[in-house]
């Protein structure tokens, strides 16, 4: 199969064995790579009810058929597992160079199973796999871990690692690559920690074979010139995600003080001009012409970032309008191996619980000193950090405040206030991994664009279509920041695979992949009743900004959700119908999920 290496590497940490298996070519044809192929293997590999932090859970590293080719923006790695934060299927992506290196080493997929008897680094060097002791690295941050491994084995290795948060099984621990890039959400780092796996190093000296190299070069170069380096995408280079602070503030959807408000008086200190004023360098991933990363040095802090999600959820949402403080929080989370979105959400929730007199965490909005102490306390589960390390949902179950616990299915909200972007509310409620901005991102069309953000009209269709788009795009996988068309994806795929792919085939694959995630979650006991929102959003009007006075009336949310199920060919309680599953080639898997 052109563009695939045809090899799966299965690593058993318990037995300390590694073996090569042939890639399931039918699955690759139907589910491609990245998110989709990861979902398909995980569905097969995990018994229902597998403990996410037990040795039975598996960690899948999945590049895709375009990874390591000349295709622009194709450097993403997808990590798939069952989430310890939500219990749902979980996929996370991370940029950098690891994904390409894994393909150069000859693999389309790595399945990591079992649990090592002692702290271990998995070392993949082309066809050789070794289990190296990591006792000297355990307890250390991701930065030191990565530096030491590169010193030991050479700078041409690529590293994934966890910090103390992952070792201590914090359910929002992330996996770090290249110091500041994260597979952030849902606790992939805790799964790695539960396996006693401190880091993974890979070095590959091979190549990826496209079906028609000349055609792929031609298509990729044309795409780079005419579709990547254009006014549609170059915001990522000129500014990067800090520009979104300005958009969100103006649209009134910048989460502020735990989603009590949609505008922040200190936003200018967190917006793109403030970031650019202290920028020292830019960075891009493998094959990327956009280079969205910003290295900054505000005051004594230094970080690659902060990205928009951190500036919003760990900045404005905590009442922190000081770029140096947010950068320091960001750098600490990166080194400790914490997702800045969920960490920011937990801190903001604790701040509101404290200010409302529900439980005193000693945290108040805007208190920089206590705010900066929290990443270390959470990662090490010390003091109040031990309580915040449970995540927002479990904190609410224990201390109260469920109505303003900003989470869906146990995943904390990212940086978009849905009362000013009603399709985003539906996207949060229906994303497979909980409150997620990577399943669909309709804010671009409504809050930042021309569509009315305060209506449910047409939003079910918008969210459905965007979910299919991302489900497919992240199965090639290509970076989120390249806004390419279905036609462009079909052209790239055709040249790489050597068979003519149509946009319709790709769209159907996107729908298939999205439905497979739903089947996984149904098999784990999730139902339509879990497609819900915190009461704050359906009850309390926003006090200020372009969305002032807005909330999402519960009957309108219910109507939007019902329309969404209907458009999907799902039942009124959110289950795919056997007919729709048959059309997607998922009938047999549906039967295994009780349909």
């Amino acid at each position, binding site marked *: 199969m052109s563009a695939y290496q045809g090899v799966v590497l299965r690593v058993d940490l318990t037995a300390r064995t590694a073996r090569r298996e042939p890639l399931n070519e039918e699955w690759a044809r139907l589910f491609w790579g990245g998110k989709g192929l990861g979902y398909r293997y995980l569905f097969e590999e995990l018994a229902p009810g597998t403990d996410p932090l037990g040795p039975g859970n598996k960690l899948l590293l999945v590049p895709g058929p375009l990874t390591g080719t000349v295709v622009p923006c194709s450097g993403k790695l997808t990590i798939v597992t069952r989430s310890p934060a939500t219990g749902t299927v979980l996929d996370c992506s991370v940029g950098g160079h690891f994904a390409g290196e894994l393909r150069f080493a000859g693999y389309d997929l790595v399945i990591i199973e079992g649990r090592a008897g002692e702290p271990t680094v998995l070392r993949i060097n082309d066809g050789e796999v070794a289990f190296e002791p990591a006792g000297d690295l355990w307890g250390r941050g991701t930065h030191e871990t990565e530096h030491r491994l590169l010193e030991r084995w050479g700078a041409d290795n690529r590293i994934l690692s966890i910090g103390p948060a992952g070792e201590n099984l914090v359910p929002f621990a992330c996996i770090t690559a290249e110091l500041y890039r994260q597979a952030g959400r849902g606790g992939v780092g805790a799964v790695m920690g539960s396996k006693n796996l401190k880091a993974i190093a890979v070095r590959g000296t091979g190549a990826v074979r496209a079906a028609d190299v000349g055609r792929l070069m031609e298509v990729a170069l044309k795409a780079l010139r005419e579709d990547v380096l254009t006014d549609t995408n170059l915001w990522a280079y000129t500014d990067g995600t800090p520009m979104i602070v300005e*958009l969100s503030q103006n*649209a009134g959807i910048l989460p502020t003080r735990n989603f009590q408000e949609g505008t922040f008086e200190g936003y200018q200190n967190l917006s793109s001009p403030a970031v650019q004023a202290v920028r020292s360098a830019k960075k891009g991933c493998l094959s990327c012409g956009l280079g969205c990363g910003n290295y900054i040095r505000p005051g004594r802090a230094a970080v690659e970032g902060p990205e928009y999600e951190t500036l919003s959820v760990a900045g404005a949402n905590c009442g922190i309008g000081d770029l140096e403080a947010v950068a320091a929080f960001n750098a600490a989370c990166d080194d400790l191996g914490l997702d800045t979105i969920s960490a920011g959400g937990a801190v903001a929730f604790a701040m509101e619980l404290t200010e409302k007199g529900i439980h005193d965490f000693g945290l108040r909005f805007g208190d920089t000193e206590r705010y900066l102490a929290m990443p270390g306390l959470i990662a090490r589960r010390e003091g109040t950090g031990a309580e915040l390390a449970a995540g927002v949902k479990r904190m609410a179950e224990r201390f109260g405040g469920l109505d303003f616990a900003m989470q869906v299915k146990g995943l904390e909200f990212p940086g978009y206030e849905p009362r000013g972007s009603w399709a985003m509310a539906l996207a949060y409620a229906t994303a497979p991994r909980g409150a997620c901005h990577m399943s669909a*991102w309709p804010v671009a069309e409504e809050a930042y664009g021309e569509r009315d953000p305060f209506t449910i009209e047409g939003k079910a269709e918008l969210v459905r279509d965007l979910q299919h788009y991302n489900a497919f795009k992240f199965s090639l996988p290509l970076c989120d920041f390249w806004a390419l068309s279905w036609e462009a994806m079909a052209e790239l795929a055709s040249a790489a695979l050597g068979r003519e792919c149509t946009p319709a085939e790709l769209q159907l694959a996107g729908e298939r992949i999205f439905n497979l995630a739903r089947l996984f979650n149904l098999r784990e006991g999730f139902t339509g009743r879990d497609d819900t929102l915190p009461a704050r959003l359906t009850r309390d009007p926003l006090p200020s900004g372009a969305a002032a006075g807005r909330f999402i009336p519960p009957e309108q949310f219910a109507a939007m959700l019902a329309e969404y199920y209907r458009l999907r060919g799902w039942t009124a309680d959110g289950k795919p119908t056997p007919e729709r599953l048959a059309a997607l080639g998922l009938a047999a898997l549906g039967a295994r999920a009780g349909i």
Partner: protein
Amino acid sequence: MLLTVRLWGPLARYAEERGGPEFTLEVAGGTTVDALVDLLGVPREYVSMVSVNGAKAARDRLLADGDIVHVLPLVAGG
């Protein structure tokens, strides 16, 4: 009437002859947001949002003397 205008990100290149991304501009009374975008030579399809005085503005909004207008590009992802 006099406006303060800022073109964000890649759109700044449409202001190269004006000395930088932020500048003042004299326009006729009755100018709308969309008319201003056209006047600046920025293709509408590259504009995500136009904000006036810190809040998203409708494209048919009439601008007023002293308004601060930001023209923001398309973005993807998040």
